[in-house]
């Protein structure tokens, strides 16, 4: 490799967006070697050229919608309240207990959606229950693995690959 002047990623951004802040030797070098860095320079230019296009506006809109969407439903593991009698906690009906019985339930904060994962000897089945019958198709994302499944008919369970841990589910 020839003994070139040092050019870092940031220098190329400076060359394209704020050339006045780049040292003269780097500016001269990049000017003389535009061809060598054409992919990087083109990428920087594309960022400016596309930053106000219809495509980027619609992508921004989609990201904003996804962040604030009421259609994104977060479900957390359902933990049953322990039964208390005379101040003593009796059988703790907890997630742990549910795991032992090979099923786990997840609900949203308003308890409008319930996902139940049932593990049998041969299958892991995921059921989605909701009173909202207007929608049949959901994307189900399991956390922390971020594995996604699609359910197209909520009257039937879907088979899923066993996960070591599931600490949350997102429905879209």
């Amino acid at each position, binding site marked *: 490799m020839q003994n070139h002047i040092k*050019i*870092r990623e940031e220098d190329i951004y400076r060359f394209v967006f704020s050339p006045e802040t780049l040292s003269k030797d780097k500016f001269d070098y990049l000017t003389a070697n535009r061809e060598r860095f054409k992919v990087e320079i083109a*990428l920087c230019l594309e960022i400016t050229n596309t930053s106000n296009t219809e*495509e980027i506006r619609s992508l921004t809109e*989609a990201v904003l919608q996804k962040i604030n969407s009421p259609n994104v439903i977060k479900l957390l593991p359902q933990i049953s309240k322990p039964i208390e009698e005379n101040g003593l906690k009796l059988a703790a009906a907890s997630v742990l207990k549910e795991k032992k019985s090979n099923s786990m339930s997840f609900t949203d904060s308003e308890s409008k959606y319930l996902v139940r994962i049932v593990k049998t000897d*041969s299958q892991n089945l995921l059921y989605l229950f909701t009173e909202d019958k207007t929608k049949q198709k959901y994307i189900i994302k399991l956390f922390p693995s971020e594995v996604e499944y699609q359910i197209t008919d909520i009257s039937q369970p879907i088979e899923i*690959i066993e996960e070591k841990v599931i600490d949350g589910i997102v429905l879209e």
Partner: protein
Amino acid sequence: MALLNKKYQTDFSNLLYLGLTFQDFAIDAVTPLFIQDKSGELPIRKALLSWDKEINDEASAYYFLSKIIGNRIEQEIARKLKEADPFFGKILRSVNHLVETNRINKVSWFGVAYLIEKGQNEITQKPIEPEFIESLPAKLFIDANEKIISSLFSYIKTETEFFPVIPLNALIRKIKQVNGSFLQQRSSESTEEHFEEELNVESVVSDSLNAVKDRLAKLYLGKGKLNDNETEVFKKVLVELSNDLKDGGISRGLYEYVKPHMIDLSKEDFYKRYQQTLDYLLRLLKKEIAVRLEDTDR
């Protein structure tokens, strides 16, 4: 979008079967930056607070954003490639082991992960483009992964005018393509001398395929969810999927695999009747392969 278009065309072609577009992928990659994490913080804010350079003009602002978004895209692509192709995951684990044990370092350049020699932590000249790896002679990739990487550093230094770094995903694809049926198997016990032996991919895939076929017969044919004809088609499709997984990866939608065996099947019917089952069986096949490959890590 600019990063995806310019830097991830090849990686993305291995994910087309998922039915994702560049737009979907960009949205999935960027959105988590703006959603509070478990500690209630916005990841984009965290990144800004831990950024050790000044942001005081257009260049530094674009640089910061491109770096953060580039990292997110790189993470998301690696995650999806691992999920889509257990062999890719196997080689990636082996290379990451070299990074974790400080035998090489990992850096990024315009959103692409590169391997860099031990003792260095930044790219200070033009690196090779990922496509360059494709054009290199196959003989450079037939060895233990650590030796391949070391030879590539030497090759880039002596034979090219590029900065000596290696694009990670392109390297993994090339190792897989050159070694085909026999991948190098890493022994996690060795930290000094790098011990590797060949792993027979054919037998891993064949055993995994048989496990999935057993399940298909027992749980789908046996329980009347699929008839004899449908089961036979699924078996053929699973063989084709396993062959593609071994070779270049799955590059078409599942409907495209089934259609030649069921000429009259419409896309709509496929999604209604078979998509969920085939999607599950493919995930199972990948999991069976991944488990067998992970066993060889031990």
